[in-house]
C-alpha cells in the first residue's frame, strides 16, 4: 500500500449476523460492494448487510478477497519489467487458489453462490473450475452421485439422447 494513503475499512455482515472487517480495497473485488459504496452507502458502522450468505461462507470469501488484494498490491509495487517474477507470483497465487478451493461440494456450492451474488468474478471462475475438475473423467452416474444431481430421465429417454448424438458416445481411441 502506498504510504500516506488512508486506511479505509468496511464491514460486511452475514445473514446470521456475523461481522467481518476488511480493507475497503479488498472488499471492492465484489461488484456488489463496489455498487453499494458508489451510491454512498456501506461505509457507516452498520456495515454492508450481505443477504443469503452465512458467516461460515462469508469468512471464506473474505479470506479470498484479502489474499487477492494483497497479491495485487504486491504486484503493483514490483518492477514491471521483471517478467519472470510476475510469472512466478502468478503461479504461486494459482497454487494458493487451488489449495483454497479444494473443498467438498457443499461448501464449494455455497461459495459459488456467494461469489456469484457478490459479483466476484475471479472466485466464480475458481469455483467453476473446481466443479469441472470434480466432473473430469467420470461417467454420468458417477457425476450424479458426486454432485448430487437427481436423474429425471427414463432409461428410454437416456438411450434416445445417446442415440441422437453418436459422436459423444463413440470411442475414438
Amino acid at each position, binding site marked *: 500500500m502506498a504510504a500516506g494513503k488512508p486506511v479505509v475499512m468496511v464491514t460486511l455482515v452475514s445473514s446470521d449476523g456475523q461481522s467481518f472487517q476488511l480493507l475497503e480495497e479488498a472488499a471492492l473485488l465484489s461488484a456488489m460492494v463496489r455498487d453499494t459504496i458508489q451510491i454512498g452507502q456501506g461505509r457507516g458502522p452498520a456495515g454492508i448487510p450481505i443477504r443469503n450468505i452465512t458467516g461460515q461462507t462469508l469468512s471464506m470469501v473474505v479470506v479470498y478477497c484479502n489474499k487477492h488484494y494483497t497479491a495485487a498490491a504486491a504486484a503493483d509495487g514490483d518492477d514491471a519489467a521483471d517478467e519472470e517474477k510476475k510469472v512466478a507470483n502468478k503461479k504461486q497465487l494459482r497454487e494458493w487458489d487451488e489449495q483454497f478451493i479444494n473443498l467438498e461440494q457443499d461448501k464449494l*456450492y455455497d461459495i459459488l453462490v456467494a461469489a456469484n*451474488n457478490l459479483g466476484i468474478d475471479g472466485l466464480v471462475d475458481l469455483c467453476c473450475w473446481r466443479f469441472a475438475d470434480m466432473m473430469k473423467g467420470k461417467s454420468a452416474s458417477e457425476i450424479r452421485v458426486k454432485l448430487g444431481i437427481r436423474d429425471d430421465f427414463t432409461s428410454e429417454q437416456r438411450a434416445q439422447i445417446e442415440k441422437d448424438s453418436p459422436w459423444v458416445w463413440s470411442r475414438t481411441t
Partner: protein
Amino acid sequence: MDCDGDGDLELSDLPSEILVYILDQLKDTRAAARTSVLSRRWRNLWARIPRLFFRNHQPHDSSHVSDALAAHAAHAVSAITQLTVMSLYSATPDATASWLCVAAPLISGELCFRNRSVVPMRTLIQELDEEVVEERGVFELPCFPKATVIRLSLGFLGLSLPPSGVFSAQPALRKLHLEYVQFHGECTLDDGMMPFLKELVICRVRGLANLTIKLKSLIRMNLSEIVDLLRLNAVVPGLKNLYVRSCLYRWNLPLVRIVAEEVEDISWATWYDPGFVKFSEMPYLKMPHTDCCHYTGTW
C-alpha cells in the same frame, strides 16, 4: 436464491450461465456433451459453451469434430469464440480439411489447430533440419469469414493457401500464426487474402523457399527458422515491429527486400549482407537489436 445460502440446494439449481461456465471449464467438448444425460436441466446445456475443445485420436477420421460442430450450430445459442482441435497423431489432409470446412463459417473468434500434439517439441525441431521428409500431404485452408485469429501448428502437415482471387478474403483475420508447417516452394500473403491482418508469425517451417508478403495493415511480423528460405519480398508499409531469426544462410545466397518505412523496432538475428538484403528507408527506426554475426552494413 430465496434460501439461506447454506441450505440443501443442488448444483442444478444454479443459473444456467454458471452451469455452462462449469462445462466450459472442462475444456473438453465431448465430456461436456456427455452431461446431457445427467438430467433434463443439463440437456443440451453444452451447446451454449462458446469455446470448444476436441482431442482427435484417429488420423483418418475427424467426423466427431464435424458432428459436434454441426450439433452446436443446430442449437444456435452461442457463436463459437474459440475452437481448439488437437490431433494427437498425424491427421490426414482429408480428415483435416473435412472438419475445417464445417468449422469455417461458424467461428467468430479463434481457431487453433495442433497436429501431432503428442510429438515432443524437440522431435519436431529435429525434423525441421532432416534431409528426408515424410510426405504427409497437403490441405487447403478454407476461408474463415469471421475468424479473427488462426493458429496452426501442423507437425509438418502440408498447408496450401490458394492465391489471391481464388482464395476468398479473410476479412476478420487479425492474427495468423503458422508453425511446423511443410510448404511446397512458394507462399504469398497479400491484401486480397487478408486485408486487415495485424500480426503474422511464421516459425519453424520447411519447404518455404519463396515468401512474398504484401500486407498494408500488418504491424508485427515474426519470421523464425524458415529453414529453406531463398527469396523474401515483404512490402509492409504499416509495419512497426520486425523480428527475423535464423532464416537466412549465406550459402543459399538468399535475396531479401523489405519495404517497411514505418518500422520502429527491428530484431535481426540472422545472416545479413547489404548486397543481398535490401531495406527501404526506415526513418522511425530506434536502435536495432542485431545478434547477427555477419552484420556488416548500415541501417
